[in-house]
């Protein structure tokens, strides 16, 4: 079992310009902006489960990204 990040689409405010998780995720090409749905999207196979995205998203009080176990 390992942990990966997952965006909660309804709570994500990427449509208002938020890019915090995309900006601070240490892994390249791992959180992308989904231009269709206007939310952040995690590319699971390259996520290392470090939780930094969760930290920055919840510090901004969006709470729109969480770790899930696979």
């Amino acid at each position, binding site marked *: 079992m390992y942990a990966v990040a997952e965006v909660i689409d309804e709570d994500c405010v990427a449509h208002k310009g938020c*890019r915090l998780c*995309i*900006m*601070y*995720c*240490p*892994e*390249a*090409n791992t*959180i*992308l*902006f989904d*231009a269709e749905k206007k939310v*952040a999207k995690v590319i699971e196979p*390259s996520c*290392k*489960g*470090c*939780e*930094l995205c*969760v*930290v*920055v998203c919840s510090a901004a009080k969006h709470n729109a990204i969480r770790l899930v176990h696979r």
Partner: protein
Amino acid sequence: MSKEKIKINREFYDIMPKEYQELVEDATYGKEGRGWKDVGESKEMIEEHSLCAGCPESIAFRYVLACLPNPEDTVMVGSTGCTSLVFPHVAVHNIHSLFGNQNAVASGLKRALSYRFPDKVKDVVVLAGDGATVDIGLDMTLQSWFRQEKIATICFDNELYANTGGQSSGLMQKGFVAKMAPAGKKFDKVDLPEIARQSGCHYVTMLTVSKPNRVEKAIRNAILIAREIGPTYVQLYTPCILEIGKQMMEGLQEMRDSEGPGKRFEFKEYISDEAKAYLESIAPKKKRKKVTAQTEG
């Protein structure tokens, strides 16, 4: 220049790896004004690598690659250390030098490129850890600055030798105890930015990677000034969370805690007069007009 250089022959398109196809279609080679804001919306020039989960060196790498003004005509020179685990997965030309030799290799490379391509802009950018830059490679680092080589040197300062388990480096803080430095560091953190200034660097800056817009400015300035004027030096705090006993999500906070007023990574910047004049000359036209208007008036 554009994506011409990396374009795939139509006959071979389908057998190329998906990652390469994405680079050709979606990466920002040749894009005017490329920068960190492109991340998340275009293909980044790094594939999966083996740095620890949450490693700030990994964040720094993303910003540096997103901000290179001319990636298609840039050659990066790396050295041994955690950074060398990333270079094989980077879509910008790069050379791995023997530990410590990076600035010597970069000097030769820059000269060879200017003979071979006299009419082209070719940027040479060194990126190495603090052990490589300040201890084992200090001779090569300094000599390249004395000689006024037109290269940009970026040091990922994690204040120890991370890749070999946490020995002390010249950039470690005095008194710091690490796994392989149990007696504590005996002398002060070497003031390399000041040494760089005294050794002839035209642009010197030290900062953490907690603010991508600042990193972007530093990297662009360093590369543009190195292209036209002379050597430049950027020192980025990229804490080794593993060796300083932090959790994997604590790297960003560690950087924020170390950059306030009076802290050891408080933002520092030095620009020589010559470099300042050059930056002004290439500043966006609007600003330049204002400067001329003022002088005329």
